């Protein structure tokens, strides 16, 4: 069965909320600048924001900036097995011989996503590597800084270096849609996009998920989304 996006010439769903499009973080130039500064200056930073608020997209900005020099390690702590260690992630840079001879690279930029799932041992190890200059900057991202279990010594190093993600504005959401849809911007007319935005609580992930849902249900045969489609998917009272 042909997917709606294939009908319009896309290989994948352009409205997927998975953060692999690092270049499309909108309304966040100041946050990006702050993050890049903290990385350059050598700090431990915490990016705080609810699910889908753009934390991973922000981390991808850093990956894009530092990729290609074997200087950046990104890791989603949810995927880090309990037995896995941050040592191995660091030593992997030098391949087999690095691990054999315990060689640890210097001045790495380490980005740890969903840090609430990080084990205590790995957190302490990361702190040690930071103190000893193997890690130049450590960026931790999580839903809440205060409720993330980090040792007092790590929290002391973070100090006031907490970057809080913000809600996306309406114009920002429309801009996001424009970037994602490219030439097919008319698929979701602006008035419909505004209604979808109002349901998203300013959360970019929710906005994209709702837009994708609308397209999936409406664009099987139609060429563009209308009020009728919107009401059929979300009901008359919503938006």
């Amino acid at each position, binding site marked *: 069965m042909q997917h709606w996006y294939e009908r319009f010439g896309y290989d994948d769903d352009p409205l997927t909320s998975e953060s692999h499009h690092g270049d499309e973080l909108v309304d966040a130039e100041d946050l990006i600048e702050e993050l890049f500064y903290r990385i350059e200056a*050598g700090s431990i930073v915490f990016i705080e924001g609810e699910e889908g608020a753009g934390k991973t997209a922000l981390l991808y900005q850093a990956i894009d900036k530092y990729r290609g020099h074997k200087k950046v390690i990104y890791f989603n702590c949810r995927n880090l097995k309990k037995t896995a260690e941050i040592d191995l992630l660091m030593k992997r840079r030098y391949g087999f011989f690095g691990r054999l001879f315990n060689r640890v690279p210097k001045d790495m930029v380490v980005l740890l996503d969903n840090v609430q799932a990080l084990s*205590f*041992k790995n957190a302490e190890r990361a*702190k040690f590597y930071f103190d000893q200059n193997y890690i130049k900057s450590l960026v931790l991202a999580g839903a809440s800084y205060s409720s993330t279990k980090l040792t*007092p010594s790590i929290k002391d190093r973070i100090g006031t270096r907490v970057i809080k993600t913000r809600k996306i504005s309406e114009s920002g959401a429309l801009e996001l849609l424009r970037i994602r849809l490219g030439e097919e911007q008319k698929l979701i007319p602006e008035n419909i996009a505004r209604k979808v935005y109002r349901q998203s609580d300013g959360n970019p992930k929710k906005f994209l998920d709702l837009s994708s849902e609308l397209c999936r249900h409406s664009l099987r045969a139609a060429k563009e989304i209308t009020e009728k489609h919107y009401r059929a998917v979300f009901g008359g009272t919503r938006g």
Partner: protein
Amino acid sequence: MDELWYRKLGYYSNPFSIKPAPFTNEVMGYNLKNIFNKIEDGKIFFVEGAYGVGKTTLLKHIITRYGGQRKVIYYSCSLERRIDVRDLIVGSGSFFQRTLGIKKHDLIFLVDEAQDLQLSDSNELFQAYKHGYLKSIVFVGVKVNRNSLVKEIEKLLEGNIINLPAISQEDAVDMIKKRLGDLDFVPPDVIREIYARSGKNPRRLLELCEDLCREAVSRGISKIKKKDIELIPNLPSKPRAAKKRTKAKRKREDVLGEAIEEAVMETEAEAPVVEELHEFREKEPLTISKKRRK
């Protein structure tokens, strides 16, 4: 991104980095020689101090001095896991020693976050010390937790607890001056003002100096003045100094004190009236009718 503020001022890297001792001559509040002597003499000692006063800096100095000789084991304690001392001793050896499981002798064991050490771990450490695998043990933590130490270690720690004090105002000025070198961008009176707001914590002091310099450079300020401190985002408020009792105030307080005393005496004289009132209440207890309660 614009050019970094410290590059504009001619520094290659951030002069206010919070990393322990990026500048080798920066040691505050203790004598490193004494520490090295204690290690050479094979002592067990505990360095205690609040967060940010320089405990990790001290550890870094020890690692720098002995690290290249495969003599140092660093371990950061946590309440959630035990120290595998044997594994760490074997792991500190060369590739062949590790493969053959040969245990090295005369190692220096650094225990960070030692306030979270467990009793069984301290016993294992003592056994390794007793059998000569460990030459010296350096505990570093916020406070000595005597419940987590075996008696033998507790005894050896007598007279071997080093307390790292909070840095003084002039130490703070000295530290920032050393960091900045010849550049007189942050004058001493500004450093003193920032120090007052840092809670005497070197790490906070460095962070506040960094934020101030960043803001000042972005605004094109060539030399920071005291009033510019307000530019620091989320600036902590200055702790309120204890007010001095002036002569006039003391006199006023004495007069007030006398007045209170007199009033108390007067009340005591009227005490029978109060007692009578009590008696009256006991005889006729206060009741609220159901109707009124509704």
